[in-house]
């Protein structure tokens, strides 16, 4: 394990430092401000790259851990650490940050300084939520994000920005303060059991909270996270916020902010409240499916380009939630991958709207048409991203959707049946949009001289295109990184689940106890000693199938486990 | 012959208190309202004295001294305030003290 003791802090605070530096740059030096913001956010991306290479995907523990006392009197700590979920989401965040900042170069012409300060602060807030392993710290960052986002919408947004901004803010706030109550309930319960005041999430992951209490806490968490996701019927802030936000704001909102909700579910709701999670599966799945179909249908009726994409988010995030609450490893894996995909493709779609909006200052679909002829490169990028969004194989969306639907299917066929209809509807509204904007003849004279993508604009798309194809063709590195994290969640929600990393676990651990948290801890301790010796033992111990020498995870053990898998819900 | 018990004092005090309260609620002249408040304070004083006597405890009487002193201070300050107000507004009708509302 190669843990740099302060890598996460570095990643976390680079954007904030950038914001602080910007504070001291004179307001009029707009280009300097732009350069500084771009440089800092790019450095932020660069320093996050080691996470990709150094993350040990065979290690079930949290990695790159940093732990300092923060508020000892209530047991809150500055406790950072990442696992597979957060690594991917952090990388997504830093990358989307670069893209968002870069895409704002010409789009933002007023109050430039404040704009970049808010954008960079937002970046730190989002990263903080992903790296925090202290629940209070998480909550702190979770709330911190709201303010810059509020300003991004409220100051640099379009027509109805004040309404949208306050709606976004209050809506998400309602959810999150209720969530805070839930957090405190867990906190005090933990105290009553262990006698220690702590917000340590890894400790919470080992709690066995009584079911009644779990039920209520789940509800509290649910409100907080579901608003952010957003799940039907808590989604109405989203179209407004998206529509009125500036392009970079929409991109960040879609690509990263929405992931907070799903991340919250997977990091907190599922492992801390496993029984309640199982009890709530029908509700969540139902809402997700409604969200999928409903979001798609409403998207189809939109006349506003951005609003259409916003509603498509509702649909896609419904898919993500459904996959997660299938509570199968495939479903959860798919759900995380789909989060990345949604970030990539919807982020790109918002950029795409942003580009014509910047040129024409209208988002009405009817204002456009025939752009293929005028802006061929733009049309090609849009096409690829449309295909990514509707889940065309070889592009990223497909991997996520197929994993989710497959994972859902084995649990409850009817869910998959309805959810898969999203595939058809998704194709319908996206292609219709594409046709209305890109195809046909140029009827609006204002469109005749629109310039095609500039080099800078193309550069904002390039990484997204690359990622879309990469995940589509070879998602293995991503899936590998999720493996142990998914297994850990699965072990919480399914006591019979045999994790894949069981193969590298302690030899003495009895098979039945392999899934217990204690065993993980023991294993973690054992592994701290040295990674290299374990695979050899592992081969001797259990049913190891193949040692894979993928560059992403040296020494990773793959093992398709057969055994008494418990069916979660009423599958037949 | 009726014996005057502490209860009687308390009843007197309560009556005085209510008179003061009603005075505060119904009178229109600020000065009279202020005097009603003084009535309330005196109700308190009677109560305290009677109880002090009943309990054979001096604290109650000490308390009364302080209340009287404070009432005097309040009277001074209060009348000053009312005069200041009167200078501006030329009225001490309480119904006209309503610039600030809602």
């Amino acid at each position, binding site marked *: 394990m190669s843990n740099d003791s302060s890598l996460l802090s570095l990643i976390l605070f680079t954007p904030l430092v950038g914001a602080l530096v910007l504070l001291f740059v004179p307001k009029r030096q707009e280009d300097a401000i732009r350069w500084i913001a771009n440089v800092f956010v790019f450095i932020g991306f660069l320093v996050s790259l080691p996470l990709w290479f150094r993350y040990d995907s065979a290690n079930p523990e949290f990695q790159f851990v940093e732990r300092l006392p*923060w*508020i*000892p*009197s*209530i047991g809150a700590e500055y406790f950072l650490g990442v696992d597979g979920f957060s690594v991917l989401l952090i990388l997504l965040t830093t990358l989307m940050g670069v893209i968002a900042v870069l895409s704002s170069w010409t789009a933002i012409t007023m109050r430039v300084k*404040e704009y970049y300060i808010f954008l960079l602060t937002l970046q730190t807030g989002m990263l903080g939520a992903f790296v925090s392993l202290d629940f209070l710290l998480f909550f702190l*960052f979770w*709330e*911190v994000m*709201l*303010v810059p986002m*509020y300003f991004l919408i*409220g*100051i640099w947004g379009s027509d109805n920005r*004040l309404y949208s901004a*306050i709606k976004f*803010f209050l809506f998400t*706030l*309602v959810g999150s*303060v*209720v969530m*805070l*109550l839930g957090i*405190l309930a867990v*906190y*005090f319960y933990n105290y*009553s059991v262990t006698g220690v005041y702590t917000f340590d999430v890894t400790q919470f992951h080992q709690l066995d909270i009584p079911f*009644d*209490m779990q039920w209520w806490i789940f509800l509290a968490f649910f409100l907080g996270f579901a608003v952010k996701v957003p799940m039907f019927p808590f989604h109405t802030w989203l179209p407004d916020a998206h529509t009125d936000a500036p392009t970079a704001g929409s991109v960040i909102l879609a690509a990263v902010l929405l992931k907070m909700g799903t991340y919250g579910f997977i990091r907190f709701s599922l492992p801390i409240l496993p029984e309640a999670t199982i009890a709530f599966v029908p509700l969540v799945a139902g809402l997700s499916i409604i969200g999928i179909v409903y979001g798609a249908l409403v998207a189809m009726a939109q006349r506003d380009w951005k609003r259409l994409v916003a509603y498509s988010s509702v649909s896609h995030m419904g898919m993500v939630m459904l996959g997660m609450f299938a509570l199968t490893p495939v479903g959860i894996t798919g759900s995380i991958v789909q989060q990345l995909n949604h970030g990539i493709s919807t982020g790109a779609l918002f950029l795409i709207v942003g580009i014509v909006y910047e040129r024409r200052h209208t988002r009405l679909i009817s204002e456009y048409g025939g752009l293929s002829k005028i802006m061929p490169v733009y049309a090609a990028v849009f096409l690829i991203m449309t295909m990514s969004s509707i889940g065309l194989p070889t592009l990223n969306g497909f991997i996520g959707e197929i994993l989710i639907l497959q994972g859902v299917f084995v649990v409850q066929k009817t869910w998959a049946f309805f959810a898969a209809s999203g595939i058809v509807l998704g194709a319908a509204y996206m292609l219709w949009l594409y046709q209305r904007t890109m195809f046909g003849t140029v009827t609006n004279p204002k469109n005749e001289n629109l310039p095609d993508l500039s080099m800078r604009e193309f550069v904002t798309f390039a990484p997204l295109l690359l990622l879309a194809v990469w995940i589509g063709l070879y998602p293995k590195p991503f899936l590998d990184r999720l493996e142990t994290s998914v297994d850990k969640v699965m072990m919480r929600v399914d006591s019979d689940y045999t994790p894949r990393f069981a193969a590298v676990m302690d030899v003495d651990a009895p098979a039945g106890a392999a899934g217990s948290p204690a065993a993980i801890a023991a294993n973690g301790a054992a592994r701290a000693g040295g990674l290299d010796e374990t695979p050899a033992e592992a081969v001797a111990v259990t049913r190891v199938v193949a040692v894979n020498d993928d560059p992403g995870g040296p020494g990773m053990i793959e093992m398709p486990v057969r055994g008494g898998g418990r069916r979660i819900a009423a599958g037949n | 012959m009726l014996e005057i018990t502490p209860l009687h004092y*308390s009843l007197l*005090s309560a009556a005085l*208190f209510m008179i003061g309260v009603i005075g*505060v609620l119904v009178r229109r002249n*600020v000065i009279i309202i*202020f005097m009603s*408040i003084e009535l309330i*304070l005196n*109700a*308190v004083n009677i*109560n*305290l004295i009677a*109880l002090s006597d009943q309990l054979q405890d001096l*604290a*109650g009487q000490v*308390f009364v001294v*302080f*209340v009287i002193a*404070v009432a005097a*201070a*309040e009277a001074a*300050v*209060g009348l*000053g*305030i009312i005069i*200041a*107000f009167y200078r*501006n507004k030329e009225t001490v009708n309480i119904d006209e*003290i309503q*610039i*600030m509302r809602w």
Partner: protein
Amino acid sequence: MPAGFTAADFYYLLPELLLTGGALLVLVIDVVLPRRDWATLGMSLLTLSVTGAAVIGFTGVDTTISAGLLAIDGFATFFKMIVIVSALMTVLMSPSYLRVEAVRPGEYYFLILCATLGMLFMASGVDLITLFIGLETMAVSFYILAGYLKPSQRSNEASVKYFLLGAFSLGILLYGMSLLYGVTGTTSLAGIAEALASGERSLILSLALVLLVAGMGFKIAAVPFHMWAPDVYEGAPTPVTAYLSVASKAASFAMILRIFMEGLPSLAADWQVLFWVLAAVTMTVGNIAALTQSNTKRMLAYSSIAHAGYILIGLVAATERGVAAAMVYLWVYIFMQLGAFAVVAMLRRQDVIGDELKDLSGLYLRKPFAAVAMLIFMLSLGGIPPTAGFMGKLWLFGAAIESGFVWLAVIFVVNSVISLYYYYRVIVFMWLKDETVGSDIAMGPAMATALVIAVVGSLLFGVYPQLLFDHAQLAADMFGSAVSTTALR
């Protein structure tokens, strides 16, 4: 109860003595150097600083002096610091305001210091008599301060209202105290607690309880005893309003906590219910009424009412954590509330009264620092991390949940969301609107210092609240729980 005074009594009274001396000196200086505003200002600041230092000097002391009339303990020290820091900030934000209003600062500072003195006694009083004296010292000073702008009808009116209603509520409070005295036979809080320990109840006791709650409720502006607050806050000079809304509230809370936690713990079941209702109604009415205000001061008044409701939650919980939560909240509250009023005070110019929301419009263009500061105060009042307000709310949440008052916590949650709406209206005016009115805004060094203190306080205790928590916890521990913590259901 040993008779007579000892040297130790005077030693422990050092802060109060210093403050009294300083206050008198201010008066003297005002006479000696009539046109030197800086002299009275300097003297006031010096007095407050020295007093503060003296208070800090008694950290860790836990004793009762003056024949059991005053307690010098962590709780008292904590509240004294709250009062002194707010007094300092109030003094700092005053000079420019007083200059614009063209009033003599000497007596003004004297009265501020007098009010402070009263509050110090409220913080350390453990006898109904001392508490009453302290309360009145404070109240009478405020009656005058509220009407300090003699030519202003609004100020006059505020003064009259505050005076009449204050005296009225004083009557109610005193009547309650007299009944309590009758039931228990003592004015000492410890004695009262002892007398009531048996748990006997009577009608008179209930009546006394309700009257006490009503009387104190008036001071902290809890609904339905809050009616005076918006009008007085609006009419009083802005720095006075600031001081009134922060320090008088903090001192009153100190008094409430003393009386109920130390004097009436055996009646906890009764007053918990009372305060539960009071808290819920107060925060709801305060927040909702604030939603549609267009006057900043009035809005902040309602907000202050709502905050009183929040803080009452700590009392409802009636545990060490609850008390600590209330203390933490009051401490962080001074920074955000005083800061907000400081910005409003700053907006007062010759041509602009500056207390309307629209006067904030375009502030970010004129005084970016003030706009940022106000943003932080608003976020803090709304309880958004990483500001101090969040940490305060966190403690209150925690106290409520730990004691099992989940529904109250939910009401609290809903209210904090509602409250954000009107705090955001302020932000909208400052940041999202560009029109500016009136002449340029000046920010003197004193005002700047006040703002900086407020900003630093609002942020520091949000990011690293440990110091504060420790003190609050320590101070609250002396009460013990009035009720056994109901474990989470």
